[in-house]
């Protein structure tokens, strides 16, 4: 769901009914949409639905409001993000974007293995990003920071019985630091960040909107499951570039209606829901998906209006569109990478290790005996015992000086 990150000055009046001119402008625009649509033979039900929208979603809007208000606190600092992006992997002073991405993928792996929920993963990534953008961390500490964030997130989100003990976490992740290191890191992180009840992240909005759209399009459309959406969201999280938040203002309510509109015209819901990332990402995602879902030029019009409204330049949109496209194609591709198992440590029990070593019956002691093509036919005394069905003309043996161990100099036969 779109996180409407509000500039402090305007926060107060955004959601009031008659207050902000912004809202009024948006709303009037919405009405013009409706008129436009009607002229293009829109079904009456759909118009009705849009009006009904406000009635259905009051509760949802309330929650959205509170989330929006909190969301700003949980964004990683932009300056820090810029620094990470510019840092290279060779430079050992700071953590680069690539390192961070690799670390997040590790966390994804651990999340899957321990069966933690997506919420845990998202929280962990959130903590990681926020910490890394505040503190200038050394790359060698990154594994510890990563695992620590995951552990803290799991304690926040998961039931107590489901949280894995720290030594297990360290053992499975094949990390080199100790439990006490982990505890110290935990203290440092919780001091630096305000780690308290779960951060409001993209996932929160994803859930909110999914439930909204589920009720909206009940039965009419194939809504991708929340699981699939979460997976796509995770895929996006693995790239630092998407954490980069550009702050924009869009009224939540207006967004809802526009989203409903797009939904009714067959836009893929996953696209719509991914608008929970900051708006630039959202818009670029829509624009990316449009070629598939585009039924009418009205869609394109909406995008353009959105763009204008959010003050996003064309070049920016293009840039983000490319990034999203790359991410989604990579995610959806059926191409399989050859895995690199050199990074992993393979610990087996003593018995199995012995078995593996002993199991090299590679070179037999006996030299090879080449099979002659005239083998079977040369037998004089075994004609009736032939196991193969070949004819056996009895003849004299030819030279049998074959093979490595036969003497190379063979005295002439016959005495």
């Amino acid at each position, binding site marked *: 769901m779109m996180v409407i990150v509000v500039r402090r000055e305007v926060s107060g009046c955004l959601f009031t009914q008659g207050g902000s001119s912004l809202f009024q402008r948006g709303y009037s625009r919405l009405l013009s949409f409706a008129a436009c649509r009607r002229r293009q033979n829109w079904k009456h039900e759909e118009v009705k639905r849009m009006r009904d929208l406000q009635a259905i979603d009051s509760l949802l809007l309330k929650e959205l409001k509170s989330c929006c208000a909190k969301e700003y606190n949980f964004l990683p600092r932009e300056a820090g993000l810029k620094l990470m992006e510019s840092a290279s992997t060779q430079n050992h002073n700071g953590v680069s974007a690539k390192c961070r991405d690799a670390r997040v993928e590790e966390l994804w792996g651990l999340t899957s293995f321990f069966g933690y929920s997506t919420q845990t993963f998202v929280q962990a990534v959130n903590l990681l990003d926020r910490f890394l953008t505040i503190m200038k961390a050394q790359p060698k500490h990154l594994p510890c920071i990563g695992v620590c964030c995951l552990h803290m997130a799991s304690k926040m989100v998961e039931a107590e019985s489901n949280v894995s003990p720290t030594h297990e976490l360290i053992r499975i992740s*094949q990390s080199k630091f100790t439990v006490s290191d982990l505890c110290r890191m935990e203290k440092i992180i919780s001091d630096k960040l305000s780690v308290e009840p779960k951060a409001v992240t993209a996932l929160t909005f994803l859930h909110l909107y999914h439930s909204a759209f589920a009720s909206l399009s009940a039965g009419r459309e194939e809504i991708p*499951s929340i699981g699939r959406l979460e*997976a796509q969201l995770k*895929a996006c999280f693995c790239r630092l570039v998407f954490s980069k938040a550009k702050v924009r203002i869009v009224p939540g309510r207006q967004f809802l209606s526009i989203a409903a509109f797009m939904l009714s015209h067959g836009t893929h819901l996953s696209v719509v829901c991914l608008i929970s990332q900051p708006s630039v990402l959202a818009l670029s995602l829509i624009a990316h998906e449009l070629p598939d879902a585009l039924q009418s030029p009205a869609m394109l019009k909406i995008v353009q209006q959105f763009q204008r409204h959010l003050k996003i330049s064309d070049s920016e949109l293009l840039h983000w569109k490319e990034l999203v496209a790359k991410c989604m194609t990579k995610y959806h591709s059926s191409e399989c990478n050859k895995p690199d198992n050199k990074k*992993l440590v393979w610990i087996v029990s003593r018995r199995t290790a012995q078995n593996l070593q002993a199991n090299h019956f590679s070179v037999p002691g006996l030299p090879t005996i080449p*099979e002659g093509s005239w083998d079977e036919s040369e037998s004089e005394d*075994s004609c009736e015992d032939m196991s193969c069905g070949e004819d056996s003309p009895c003849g004299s043996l030819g030279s049998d000086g074959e093979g490595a161990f036969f003497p190379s100099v063979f005295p002439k036969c016959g005495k």
Partner: protein
Amino acid sequence: MLTCNKSGDRMVVDAPNSNGPFPPLALMHFRDVAPAEQEKLFIQKLRQCCVLFDFLSDPLSDLKWKEVKRAALSEMVEYITHNRNVITEPIYPEVVHMFAVNMFRTLPPSSNPTGAEFDPEEDEPTLEAAWPHLQLVYEFFLRFLESPDFQPNTAKKYIDQKFVMQLLDLFDSEDPRERDFLKTTLHRIYGKFLGLRAYIRKQINNIFYRFIYETEHHNGIAELLEILGSIINGFALPLKEEHKIFLLKVLLPLHKVKSLSVYHPQLAYCVVQFLEKDSTLTEPVVMALLKYWPKTHSPKEVMFLNELEEILDVIEPSEFVKVQEPLFRQLAKCVSSPHFQVAERALYYWNNEYIMSLISDNAAKILPIMFPALYRNSKTHWNKTIHGLIYNALKLFMEMNQKLFDDCTQQFRAEKNKEKAKSKEREEAWIKIENLAKSSPQSCSNGDGCPFDRRCSEVKKDS
């Protein structure tokens, strides 16, 4: 058995002694005799060595003459190793005869417990008592066969099918040293006597058939397989039908036998050699292996996993695709095995680069099969080492294709929920039945016997 030749008195050194029923003579050394006479002396010595001594029931008898025989044998070994043109035509029958007399004997009945109680790795083998002489006879015969002067054409009159048959019978000896010599001897005979090859192969097949289907007892299977390994290695392409039948009807059923551990490395080598020669045999081999897969014998299962990995190391990608689904279904079962060695060995496949590259080329088919087993065991397996290995396996899968992995996770969760829902349904159905039963007018808790009986009698009373 020949008595010793008394002709040529000038060759006698020592006077006959009346120590036994026969008069053994100590003959002169070769170096002390003129070259022209050496052949005659050679034959005399050979005939002398046809005398057998008792090592078993009376080890201390005839010690002097045992030493004479030993010395003679030893000298003859040296003689033919370091001299050329000493193997003349009259020598052949004498040598073969001497060997036959010394070697071809009925083996004593097995003193080790047979069948399940005999553990080939733990129990000591029974060694041959007459080894001091037998060893030299074997040594001598081997040098004889390997000598550059040896002529198979001449020898084939004496080394015939009967000889080979008797030689093969000796493979059941319990003495591993003897079996080792037999192995080398038969290997040389196979190499030199082309006319005997088909016969040898056929008789070996018969030994195997008897072993698999009748007795399940034979001490020489490993040695025979080692010989066969070198033969298979030399097969000409395209493979003859006879050889393919041998693989399918003899080698593969050898996997069934309980004492597989004795000869498994050699068997695996033979199978892999076959596949290297002709890769179209892969599918029948792998399917047979899966058919014979041990269900309760865990050490055997580990052996099968070893063999399977060796097969996969040489498999062609096109053949791999044909067998991948049943294969990975079996692997999924192995990974879930409560026996930690089986699970470990199966998981260690993920450390094999070639296998991983095969998997990544076919991940769409393989991952859905492997995933549930891996994921379930990451939680439920009792062994911590297994957890670590499962993590590695899952991580490698994740790196391969994230979307596929996510899809599998979804599916797994969905199925788990379905199962939960089903069991809940079942619970509810039972509760429903229970409630129905409770509310039935006929139910009354009398505490003893069937409530219906009492009820019936009560009803009768009422009416």
